[in-house]
């Protein structure tokens, strides 16, 4: 550099002029547009959420919903507290319905088949084509649909009558055996309503009422009521009888591991024992004598004493209630098993007490099940000219051997009303994209006496040229000259409801009220009618059902608590939601008892070929002590091939192993039908699991207290072994010193003195946000996990990233086996613990952050400031609870349009390189503060701030509030004798999340958390 310019100077020049160039560029290129409305909708204020009521259409439970919209986009769904079914809560699948709305794989426009492909057409052309084909079919048309609301069912029936043809109702996991049993035993053709909350002893024969059976949110609520410790210090008991512990089973106080298919004999033996002393079995008395307890013990594989004890408890600890078997126990004698359970209930006097026929579940009661079989026969024999499929996917959800695919393919003209492509619509000749239920009108009446209007919560997502099926049918009927008195389904719906009111004015008021409140509850009528036992009109086999094949292991196929029968599989939230039992995400697994696996030298993750007489699948093994040794379990919902980018290729379809047969006489899909053989493939995979340890390793993470020890201050004694250590206090920068001797019990003083750290000290005039989680209520259902993910813009990372341990959910449900024994030798004790940021008063994450991105707020919250974070991850390393997650890639960048429409505008969308974690829903705190400030600067009210997880919990296990307010609900809950804080006694973190110990019937041994 002889000319005097040194490298360093050159870089300086370059740097400064570079800055100038950047500035210039900024002013021209990086333009952000602000688009105002042309005309302002009157119910929208920018920046303020607008809420609408509607009804979830995820399953036949039909929970009432509140939908939060921002600037016309639905961003969050929540339970409607006024609705008697949801009671303000919602399950994971309900939350994920938002992803169905914004599913990028929804169909963009009507399509007609052209060779192997589809061609987009206009609605005009599509409707004209359908009208023409229906005309040509000359009355040989068929409509296959799921359960419909009253108005839609009426419309479709009218339509099919007018064009000539019939409607077939098909629901993959319909509880047909239950309904059929009610008809046989009581002569009532409907599913009764079960009042779990009123019972004191619940016995489930494989009815998974906390996850998929009938109405899981409602039952989650009533189960919490049933199992809560009441004012008299007692709690209801729940016994689960079945070959495999589902999530529902894991919440039982006792597991009676009966063999698959032995429900009927056990129930009848119990009924016989009870009838001897108490009840009258009416026309079944002779039959009960036939099925004695000795035979039951033989068939079921549990001891006579166990069955006797169950029977005595069932009779004496009443009101009792027996349930099931549900879809996971639909073997070839499932109707007989449901009949036996009904008889047991009748003998114990439960009908009219915990089982109500006057508030029966609605639906198309008059239609026999198994119609789909005759529909398949009709299609195969060429008796159908036009087949329309709406809202169901039988090509996937019927066993391959049913012949649906071939029969459907043989129909001359096939129409699909699916909103996104699936296995069935891929075969169609005409695809007419339906609206998502959040864009649709409708009505629901899941239970007699409860009616709710489903209203659209936003304009249809503009990416998809969709049309509500009701509107299509009305339009087609009009084209065929068979007008049905309404131009749109909205008119049809209103006309139907107008007829129930005297005057127009009265109707308009009632209509507005129904929309505003989201539900109309009226007297169901038929008060207190208790039907008597009837002699059966159908021959029933109560013995063990036949199983196909000659393998050693019985295959148990069960509905997934995340995917149902597979209709929710295209939601990345649900795919990445750890299964509540196995904690596995994305892919399928075969559940196998550890002893069975050991005998076959199989480990978790070993891929095996499962072969039944009907097919075979390759799937990794997951050892599970909650399944009998002679059984293996496989969940439904995997193995999609044409359903969308998030579903396809994940897992295997368990239906491939099942026969085409349906249960007789109900016509339900048979899920327990075959024996299988297991052949190791020699291959192994790392499972995409989020499970850490099944064992607490003697640490008081999720301790319990025996019911007998409650109220005597005895829980410390029973848990023992921890909590006796000296409390330490952080002393400036000088490490920990022993805390001054407290004047009262440490657990009574919260927050502890030692939590006065951080820049702000402990200001008296601020709130102190804390949470209480009652582990006795938590069922591990994981609705909170999805609710949190929806509220807080938490990304999903995909299977490969989960395998690497990079899952990003801010909450997880820890599942610890304390005692799970498939031989009935030890009590059942499984602990669920929702783990989220504990917002420690003495947080290990805070002092290690070099940039002060995580710190303690004056309100007692451990905050994470994303814009400060530089991603050292020291905090995550130092967190004893493993609740901090790191954003390795900007996962949100990969979210396709329009799925990103769901993002909550009140929460920062994080990019890569940033730690994140639970914020105690700080955006909701700020929103409430803003509201209070606008309302004259009033104080916040207790209960005004509801975190997303709390809102979603059916059991109301989570309470959030201000501990400084002595009248707050959380202050009362925290004052419970069961309160503890995770690991606090060991490491003095002083968490703000307080847990209430689970209450067990059995003794919790000293030093055993365990």
């Amino acid at each position, binding site marked *: 550099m002889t000319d*005097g*310019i*040194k490298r360093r*100077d*050159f870089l*300086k*020049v*370059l*740097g*400064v*002029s570079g*800055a*100038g*160039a950047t*500035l*210039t560029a*900024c*002013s*021209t290129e990086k*333009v*952000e*547009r*602000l*688009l*105002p*409305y*042309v*005309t*302002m909708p009157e119910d929208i*204020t*920018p*920046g*303020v959420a607008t809420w609408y009521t509607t009804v979830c259409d995820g399953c036949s439970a039909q929970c009432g919903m509140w939908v939060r919209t921002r600037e016309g986009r639905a961003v969050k769904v929540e339970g409607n507290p006024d609705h008697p079914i949801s009671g303000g809560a919602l399950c994971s699948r309900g939350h994920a319905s938002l992803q169905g709305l914004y599913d990028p794989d929804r169909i963009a426009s009507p399509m007609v088949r052209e060779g192997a492909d589809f061609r987009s057409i206009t609605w005009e052309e599509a409707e004209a084509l359908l009208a023409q084909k229906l005309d040509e079919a000359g009355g040989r048309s068929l409509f296959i649909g799921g359960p419909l609301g009253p108005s839609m069912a009426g419309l479709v029936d009218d339509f099919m009558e007018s064009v000539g043809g019939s409607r077939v109702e098909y629901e993959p996991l319909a509880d047909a055996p239950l309904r059929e049993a009610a008809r046989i035993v009581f002569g009532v053709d409907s599913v009764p309503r079960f009042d779990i909350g009123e019972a004191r002893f619940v016995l489930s024969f494989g009815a998974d009422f906390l996850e998929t059976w009938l109405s899981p949110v409602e039952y989650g609520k009533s189960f919490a009521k049933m199992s809560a410790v009441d004012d008299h210090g007692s709690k209801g008991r729940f016994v689960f009888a079945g070959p495999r512990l589902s999530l529902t089973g894991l919440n039982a106080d006792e597991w009676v591991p009966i063999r698959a298919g032995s429900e009927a004999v056990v129930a009848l033996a119990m009924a016989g024992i009870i009838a001897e002393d108490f009840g009258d079995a009416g026309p079944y008395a002779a039959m009960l004598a036939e099925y004695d307890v000795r035979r039951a013990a033989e068939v079921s594989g549990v001891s006579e004493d166990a069955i006797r004890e169950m029977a005595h408890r069932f009779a004496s600890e009443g009101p009792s209630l027996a349930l099931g078997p549900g879809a996971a126990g639909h073997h070839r004698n499932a109707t007989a098993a449901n009949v036996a359970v009904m008889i047991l209930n009748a003998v114990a006097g439960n009908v009219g007490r915990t089982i109500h026929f006057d508030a029966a579940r609605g639906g198309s009661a008059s239609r026999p099940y198994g119609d789909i079989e005759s529909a398949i026969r009709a299609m195969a024999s060429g008796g159908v000219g036009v087949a329309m499929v709406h809202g169901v996917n039988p090509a996937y959800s019927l066993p391959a051997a049913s012949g649906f695919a071939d029969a459907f393919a043989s129909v001359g003209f096939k129409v699909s009303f699916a909103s996104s492509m699936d296995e069935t619509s891929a075969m169609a000749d005409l695809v007419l994209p339906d609206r998502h239920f959040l864009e649709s009108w409708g009505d629901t009446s899941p239970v007699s006496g409860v009616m709710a209007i489903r209203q659209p919560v936003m304009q249809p997502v503009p990416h998809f040229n969709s049309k509500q099926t009701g509107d299509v049918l009305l339009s087609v009927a009009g084209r065929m000259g068979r007008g049905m008195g309404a131009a749109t389904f909205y008119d049809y719906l209103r006309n139907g409801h107008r007829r129930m009111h005297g005057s127009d004015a009265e109707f308009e008021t009632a209509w507005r009220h129904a929309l505003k409140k989201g539900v109309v509850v009226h007297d169901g009528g038929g008060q207190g009618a208790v039907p008597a036992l009837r002699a059966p009109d159908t021959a029933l086999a109560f013995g063990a059902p036949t199983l196909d094949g000659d393998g050693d292991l019985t295959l148990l196929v069960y509905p997934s608590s995340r995917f149902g029968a597979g209709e929710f599989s295209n939601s990345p939230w649900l795919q990445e939601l750890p299964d509540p039992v196995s904690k596995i995400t994305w892919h399928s697994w075969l559940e196998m008892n550890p002893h069975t696996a050991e005998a076959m030298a199989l480990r978790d993750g070993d891929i095996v070929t499962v072969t039944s007489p009907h097919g075979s699948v390759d799937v990794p093994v997951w050892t599970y002590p909650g399944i009998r040794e002679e059984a293996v379990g496989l969940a439904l919902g995997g193995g999609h091939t044409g359903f969308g980018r998030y579903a396809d290729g994940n897992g295997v379809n368990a239906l491939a192993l099942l026969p085409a047969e349906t249960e007789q006489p109900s016509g339900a899909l048979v899920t327990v039908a075959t024996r299988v053989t297991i052949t190791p493939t020699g291959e192994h995979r790392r499972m995409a699991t989020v499970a850490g340890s099944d064992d607490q390793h003697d640490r008081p993470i999720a301790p319990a207290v025996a019911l007998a020890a409650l109220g005597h201050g005895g829980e410390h004694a029973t848990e023992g072994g921890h909590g006796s250590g000296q409390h330490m206090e952080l002393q400036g920068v000088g490490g920990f010193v022993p805390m001054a001797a407290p004047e009262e019990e440490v657990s009574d003083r919260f927050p502890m003195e030692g939590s006065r750290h951080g820049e*702000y000290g402990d200001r008296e005039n601020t709130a102190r946000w804390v949470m209480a989680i009652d582990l006795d209520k938590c069922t591990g259902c994981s609705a909170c996990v999805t609710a949190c993910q929806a509220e807080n813009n938490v990304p999903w990372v995909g299977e490969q990233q989960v395998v690497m341990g990079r899952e990003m959910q801010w909450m997880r449900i820890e599942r610890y086996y304390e005692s799970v024994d498939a031989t009935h030798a030890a009590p059942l004790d499984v602990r669920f613990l929702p783990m989220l940021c504990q917002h420690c008063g003495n947080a290990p994450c805070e002092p290690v952050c070099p940039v002060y991105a995580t*710190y303690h*707020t*004056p*309100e007692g*919250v451990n*905050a994470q*400031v*994303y*814009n*400060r974070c530089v991603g050292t991850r020291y905090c995550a390393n130092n967190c004893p609870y493993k609740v901090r997650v790191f954003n390795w890639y900007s996962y949100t960048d990969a979210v396709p349009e329009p799925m990103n429409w769901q993002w909550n505008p*009140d*929460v*920062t*969308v994080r990019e890569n390189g940033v730690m994140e974690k639970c*914020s105690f829903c*700080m*955006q909701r705190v*700020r929103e409430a503060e*803003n509201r209070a*400030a*606008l309302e004259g600067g009033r104080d916040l009210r207790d209960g005004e701030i509801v975190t997303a997880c709390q809102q979603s919990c059916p059991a109301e296990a989570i309470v959030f509030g201000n501990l400084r307010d002595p009248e707050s609900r959380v202050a009362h809950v925290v004052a419970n004798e069961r309160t503890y804080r995770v690991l606090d006694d060991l490491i003095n973190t002083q968490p703000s999340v307080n847990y209430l110990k689970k209450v067990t019937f059995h003794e919790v041994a000293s030093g055993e958390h365990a």
Partner: protein
Amino acid sequence: MKKHWLMGGFVGVIALAAAAFVQEQDAPVAGGDSPAAYPSGQPIAFPHNQHAGSEPGQNNMDCMFCHFSAERSVDAGIPPVSTCMGCHAVIPGTQNPQEIDKLRNYATTQEPIPWVRVYKVSDHVHFPHMRHVNAGLQCQQCHGQVQEMTVLNSRAPEWGGDNMGWCVDCHRQSEASTDCSVCHY
């Protein structure tokens, strides 16, 4: 060596000045409605001073007449086209009637006006307008003397933009919370 430093600084200053010049100028340029028609990039040459100014001939309108949700929402609100037309249906304008023709065109075609955003805080900051308006702050305290500006620019001396010190100074002076999680969550 020092000379080179100066040289670099000089280049930078010129670049800055050029950028400023480009933003300050906003006389209509012939050539229609393209975003490039106005150096500011705004689709309509909207003079804030004509509307909000209190000089003779100006209209002295309240800011919240158009920015209607500033006192009840986190967002101040950009007026819908219908609000503009509420007056401009009968006010054709005298100085630049062609600009009002553009407005009418948006109203007729039912298209939103693609305004270019001037004031912006980062995505990781939550600024609730209503808390500040209801605390008695004047809009001008952050946005500058809008009623005197033909074209808004985010370099008014009052506007601190993404400079957190600017926010915190005011929060300290008015004894508002300086807790990070008040704005960052």
